[in-house]
């Protein structure tokens, strides 16, 4: 079975937010909410600085606390590649999933349900990349099957140094960042 994940080449990412904007239009994300966002992580003292730029979103964890804590089953793992999704009319808006996410990737949609990145499951089902990946002008984002050793994402992870976010939280995130 496939296990979908994303690989971000932080060396190429310029943090332009095209992924953020594309997500908004593709998914009609309401104004003042973000399913994905840019983080700039700067270390050092001027002028000896290091900056990692990352596009972040739901990590579609293999060990998803948001799914475990959901009292109604609204948050669930989709059969297609382990994408973590929310069924809107099962969600009661208790916000436990928001509190359970170490990445703060979820928010409450103005209509009341918990919302977040879906890996553009509606596109993935049709064999397309998620919108953010498909628009990225620097081509720094890759989407694919982490279980398939021949997929581009697997090859990138095998060949380059990378890290995930807050692995110590034990959620087994499926977003990886090449350094």
């Amino acid at each position, binding site marked *: 079975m496939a296990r979908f994940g994303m690989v971000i080449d932080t060396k190429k990412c310029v943090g332009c*937010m095209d992924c953020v904007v594309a997500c908004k239009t593709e998914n009609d994300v309401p104004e003042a909410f*973000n399913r994905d966002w840019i983080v*700039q992580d700067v270390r050092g003292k001027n002028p000896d600085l290091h900056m990692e730029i990352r596009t972040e979103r739901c990590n579609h964890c293999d060990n998803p606390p948001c799914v475990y804590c959901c*009292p109604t*089953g609204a948050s669930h793992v989709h059969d297609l590649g382990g994408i973590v999704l929310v069924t809107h009319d099962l969600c009661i808006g208790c916000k436990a999933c928001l*509190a359970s996410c*170490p990445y*703060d990737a979820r928010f*409450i949609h103005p209509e009341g349900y918990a919302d977040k990145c879906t890996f553009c499951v509606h596109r993935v089902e049709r064999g397309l990349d998620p919108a953010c990946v498909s628009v990225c002008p620097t081509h720094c984002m890759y989407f694919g099957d982490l279980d398939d050793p021949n997929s581009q994402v697997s090859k990138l992870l095998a060949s380059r140094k990378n890290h995930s976010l807050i692995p110590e939280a034990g959620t087994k995130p499926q977003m990886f960042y090449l350094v």
Partner: protein
Amino acid sequence: MNEYTTTRHNELVDPSLHIWGWEIPVYLFIGGLVAGMMIITGYFIFKGKYKDKACVCRSLPLLGMIILSAGMFALFLDLEHKLYTWRLYLTFKATSPMSWGAWILIVVYPTMIASFLVNVPEYFSRKFPWMVGISEKLQQHKYAVKNIGVVNMLLGGLLGIYTGVLLSALGARPLWNSSMLWLLFLVSGLSAASAFVHMVAKRVEERELLAKADNGFLILEIFVIGLFIIGMLTSTKVHIQSALVLLSGLYAPAFWVFVLGIGIVIPLILQLLAVNHKIKHTPIAPIMVIVGGLVLRFVIVYAGQYTHWVDAAF
């Protein structure tokens, strides 16, 4: 210096999580309080004290139901997708403390009704004489009554534990990520309930008993809080930092003054003096305990939301 900037600006999530306002701490406090009340009621019923007309266990079930309903209403107010609340009761999710809680609450009410019926309070027996019939029939079955007492204690325990597990299961908030939290909330619930019952009980012996019990619970609570903090301080960086939020950070004043001082230490001293007959029993100490218990929930819920894993930079 570690500079961390994000373009995310989600309501309730940024700059730090603030998804839960007053409703959840109030609900958690009430859950603990009612849990304690159920345990006390169950104990009295189990011990056969219900036969005494003046026993506080006659009025506690009804009070418990009213208070718990208020708590559940607060919980309901917090839900963002209210029209879909019924979805809770179409499923049971074993990994979700919320789901456990929903179902526990469902069985808590019949249990409290049963304990209410064991010896219906006088107001009701006057208004609804048929209730007296039920009480009389029930009382003929000593074993059943004892079981009602046991089930009350059991479910009270579950309810009290669940209020803590609810938070501690949310591993993304380091402050809540402690296996002491269920015990803390249970003990705090018991001490608040003891204080509450101490105030409403009519019989002197009961008041004495509960004041003594409360002293026990308060002393226990100090130990549990101590272990809770030590557990945090001996864990990872994020846990240490989240403990510091209580000890010296943003929530330190509320923690030291309200939770420990007003909520535990001062009433403990007052009640120790009272049970040793140095001073008279007054409602001051119990009120302090109740306020302290409420503030504890606020502090834990708010400070917990403020703590997170990301770079531990809060």
